[in-house]
């Protein structure tokens, strides 16, 4: 187990690993449970796959439980997710009843684990009502909200707030995502795992293979956006920016994303992208399976510039991933992109296709600057957005919630 943490030593350095070990000392032996609604797919599961074994490596008895539900439950929670992010939909009462009932059933299954835990982390709205069923709990319960609830559909937020207010604390990715709740609202941005398939260093032969696999020309610059086919990611704006820049410099564009077959909007947007792409052989629209982590890794690495021209964004971990691969990022001036992309340092914030095209031309004209910004971007991620920083903040939070709620906690010995 110890070795799991040691693998990060060569990436983040001795001081960071030693710091984590010392910080975790007072927490050794405590029972920690994470609960979410899926073992595979999505950013939450990705983070837990890494965070749970790291906590174990530090001596915390950590388990990960997943709630189950019928298709109606997941349809309801998907609706809830969308409305919390601003869509004005109503959720039918039977769906909400099923949401609560599913949580009650899951609580009965998990009761022993949840009641015995010292700290319970409940991720996102799906399992939020579990706390309400846990009478005589001994541990601290923390609700981890991974989504942007800055402008929710109020009736749905008011409904959910009844379930999350009684928690001992909540965690948000950015202060601008948070709604006011009657308990401490901790701020912990997400992170990437540098050793995951999506981020690990790749062999040069694998990168060469990627050119061939996707029909890309290694001799001409490649710019890439990796994202779902979603209007908020503005893929049409990306194509427009590419066209404007291509008038001045030879260029290839990759738009890579995964699409769920049951996502009607995704299919619609993909169709719009294909129409906009027309007959241009240098635009490569790739619909990849959700587990194509290594392909995404390779595509980001063979690109000169990575784009994330979102009109609205959560944290934007695709930005973090690209920066870790020493790519300057042209990112939409929104959400978490703003705390990652700094003009002239790690990329440029852009607002229009014209602005994006201008920055593409600038970076391709000034290759030394492009490489310098890429190196700075990687360093910035190393210091701020790797899983080790995320782990440090979780440990700090766990110490904080198990001590008196003072501004300053001095640990003995």
């Amino acid at each position, binding site marked *: 187990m110890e070795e799991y943490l040691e693998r990060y030593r060569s990436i983040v350095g001795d001081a960071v690993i030693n710091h984590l070990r010392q910080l975790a000392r007072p927490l050794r032996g405590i029972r920690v449970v994470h609960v979410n609604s899926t073992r595979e797919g999505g950013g939450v599961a990705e983070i837990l796959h890494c965070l749970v074994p790291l906590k174990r490596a530090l001596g915390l008895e950590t388990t990960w439980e997943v709630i189950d539900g019928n298709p109606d439950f997941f349809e309801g929670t998907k609706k809830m997710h969308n409305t919390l992010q601003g869509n004005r939909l109503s959720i039918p009462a039977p769906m909400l009843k099923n949401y609560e009932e599913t949580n009650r059933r899951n609580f009965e299954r998990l009761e022993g684990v949840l009641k015995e835990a010292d700290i319970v982390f409940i991720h996102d709205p799906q399992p939020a009502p579990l706390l309400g069923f846990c009478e005589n709990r001994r541990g601290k319960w923390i609700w981890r909200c991974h989504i942007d609830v800055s402008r929710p559909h109020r009736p749905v937020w008011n409904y959910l707030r009844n379930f999350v207010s009684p928690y001992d604390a909540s965690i948000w990715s950015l202060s601008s995502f948070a709604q006011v709740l009657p308990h401490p609202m901790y701020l912990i941005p997400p992170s990437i795992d540098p050793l995951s398939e999506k981020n690990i260093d790749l062999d040069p032969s694998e990168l060469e293979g990627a050119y061939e696999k996707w029909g890309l020309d290694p001799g001409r610059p490649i710019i890439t956006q990796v994202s779902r086919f979603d209007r908020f990611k503005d893929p049409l704006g990306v194509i427009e920016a590419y066209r404007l820049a291509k008038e001045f410099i030879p260029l290839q564009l990759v738009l890579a994303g995964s699409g769920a077959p049951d996502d009607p909007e995704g299919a619609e947007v993909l169709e719009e992208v294909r129409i906009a792409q027309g007959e241009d052989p240098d635009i490569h629209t790739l619909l990849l399976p959700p587990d194509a982590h290594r392909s995404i890794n390779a595509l980001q690495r063979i690109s000169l510039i990575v784009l994330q021209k979102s009109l609205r964004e959560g944290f934007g971990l695709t930005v973090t991933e690209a920066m870790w691969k020493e790519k300057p990022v042209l990112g939409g001036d929104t959400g978490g992109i703003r705390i990652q992309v700094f003009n002239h340092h790690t990329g440029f914030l852009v607002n229009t296709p014209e602005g994006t095209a201008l920055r593409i031309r600038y970076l391709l004209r000034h290759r030394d600057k492009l490489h310098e910004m890429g190196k700075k971007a990687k360093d910035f991620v190393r210091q701020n957005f790797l899983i080790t920083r995320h782990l440090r903040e979780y440990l700090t939070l766990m110490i904080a919630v198990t001590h008196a709620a003072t501004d*300053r906690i001095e640990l003995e010995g």
Partner: protein
Amino acid sequence: MENPFIVRDCALIAIATGLRAQNLRELSNRIREVPPACIYYHFWGGLLRAKFDDPEFPNDFASWAQHSLHDKRLAERLAIINPLEFENMEGLRRELLEVVDERLDELDIPPWVETDQQFHFIRTQIVVFDTGMQVPYPRELMGRIQSFSLGSIFYHFIDARRRPPYKIDDFSAWLETFDGRYADLARSIQAIDPYFTNLHVLQSELKDILDRHFQG
């Protein structure tokens, strides 16, 4: 080892207060009411979190005035506030209010920002813990300083100034207990301006000063 330097470490975590300001008047009102840990965070928290514009705008208030309010005059005045001059956060709060309120007096209409550019007041919790490491003599600090975590650098060089004997870092305070033998070294360390930099650079500067002193 009669008087070792006991190396401690710390970790900071940010907490949203839910308080926000959308114009300069609101900023002033909020500054009056937020907890001291909030003022601390917005002046010093930048050293321990993701930030790139710190050399130019060393505190969050100045940065917001420049980038969101677009009030350059106010940004300059806020940026020059030196938090090291104040023994506690209340003194710093008064100075901050003085600058903001003076600017409000100069303007007919308080400048405002769009919703997604609001100033979010954040406070900190700090967890301090022992590393088990002790440095027996000043010369040994030279070899050890690079192995300190950034949390240790923050705790001993920044956070120390709000603990007795106040306004002095722990390294200098320790060196001054050696009957004047390390007075020059202590003075050199005290001369480091910790405000327009980051913790990596501070750590390197400390190392350079120690190297120069002990190795010539």
